[in-house]
């Protein structure tokens, strides 16, 4: 079966964004259960790419493969046409991750450290900046995601929305080329979903970072995505949001089941 049955063109009229990350023929089993039979798709550079799919379809699995937290059984994941993530050694993975930020579903903030120290950690570990410069950087990033007065709080003292923003700030503090977001809207009320969504769009527009978001939130996906990758039955259907609205594939219709307007 062809991996992509939907038009893969995307972006504003007249602008063709090149593919930043190309996934080719991924296969992956969890125990006896096949998660990916043959997943091929591309993620556009500097755009918001959303991975949709039902529960257990492999959205987070694919995202973790993009972050080299998981290896597929076979297939390739190419970044910038030449770097195959499935063949990297541990030191190359470390070097690759310097250019990648990841916002985890639950935030994954270190619960024994303050919000400030969490965000400062990658800079303290990898940059030559002194404490004053790090504090300036953190202030700048916190301002850009709308975090204020939380520096000394522990992650457990933050609300769900604040935690997402703190996680986003930590992911952005090293100015990554690629930002991976795992279910950024899960557990949030509708107003906070809008807030986080506008934040992601704003970050994408200002920083021009390639975003790959695993989500099950259809409405926000159609508002912000430049490209959608729909995981169904171990395969990927990808294309621009408009291509999904009128698509006749029964699997697409079944997944959206009235959510498309």
């Amino acid at each position: 079966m062809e991996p992509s049955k939907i038009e893969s063109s995307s972006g504003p009229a007249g602008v063709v964004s090149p593919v930043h990350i190309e996934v080719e023929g991924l296969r992956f089993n969890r125990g006896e259960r096949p998660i990916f039979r043959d997943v091929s798709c591309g993620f556009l550079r500097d755009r918001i790419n959303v991975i949709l799919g039902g529960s257990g379809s492999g959205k987070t699995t694919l995202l973790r493969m993009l972050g080299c937290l998981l290896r597929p059984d076979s297939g390739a994941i190419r970044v910038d046409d030449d770097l195959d993530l499935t063949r990297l050694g541990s030191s190359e993975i470390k070097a690759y991750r310097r250019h990648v930020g990841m916002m985890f579903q639950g935030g994954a903030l270190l619960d024994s450290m303050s919000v400030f120290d969490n965000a400062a950690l990658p800079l303290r570990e990898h940059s030559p900046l002194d404490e004053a410069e790090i504090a300036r950087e953190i202030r700048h990033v916190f301002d850009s995601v709308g975090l204020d007065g939380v520096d000394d709080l522990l992650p457990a003292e933050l609300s769900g929305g604040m935690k997402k923003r703190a996680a986003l700030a930590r992911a952005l503090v090293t100015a990554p080329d690629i930002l991976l977001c795992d279910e950024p809207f899960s557990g949030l009320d509708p107003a906070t979903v809008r807030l986080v969504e506008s934040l992601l769009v704003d970050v994408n527009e200002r920083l021009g970072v390639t975003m790959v978001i695993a989500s099950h939130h259809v409405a926000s996906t159609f508002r912000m995505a430049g490209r959608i990758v729909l995981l169904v039955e171990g395969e990927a259907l990808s294309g621009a949001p408009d291509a999904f609205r009128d698509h006749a594939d029964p699997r697409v219709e079944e997944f959206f089941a009235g959510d498309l307007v």
Partner: protein
Amino acid sequence: MTGGGVTRLGRGATRMVFDLGGLTRFGAQVADSLRRRPLRLRRLADEMFTIGVLSLSIVLLSGLLVGLVLGLQGHTTLVRFGAEDTLGAVVGLVLIRELGPVLTALLVTGRAGSAVAAEIGAMVVTEQLDGLRMMSVDPIDFVVKPKALAMVLSMPLLSALFIVMGVFGGWLVGVVFVGGDPGLYLSSLESAVRFREDIGGSLLKAFVFGVLVALISTWRGFTCRPNAAGVSAATTATVVMSSVATLIFDYFITALWRF
């Protein structure tokens, strides 16, 4: 033995071999991280407080109680042979050679080892270790190294304090409660204890037990299944494995050190 029994035995043996291999590999990674900079002294100090200082009360209390019991039992027995003047030596040698390091290791396993496994396991469940990996920060270097080092450094110190409290407990019984000679209690202790054989062996045991508890607790937490049941299993396995390993190694060190 039924076919099912053989299968279970085979699976158990295979799992044990895999576990030993995994633990050895993990130990090598931790040892490798000790060579790397930074040493993370701030985190090490925090862990020394959590593992060492917060274990003080239970270690000191247990040491005192064990010393009191040893004093009573020792005095009752020694009186039969007219050797009650050697109570200090008996209490001291039993504590220094055996009970001090072993009981301290078992206490620290229950109080701090289980907590270390649960904390690291919770970090697995909440993806904090993956978060570190995505920041190109090695979780073994950042999380495991300070905890393991703090455990290894704390164990001999706690064991020494356990012994001191135990000797004090024996003194309370032998001198204060039954009216023995305080000078004889201390002089018999002083003349019986040899530095290399007794003190050295005691510190060696405490150090080895510290390494065992540190590795088992951090490894169990690090490799736990990412759910609540996984954390619970890791915590239980830490206490069981560390306790058994402590007793096994105690025998071999005692046999090899030639007390």
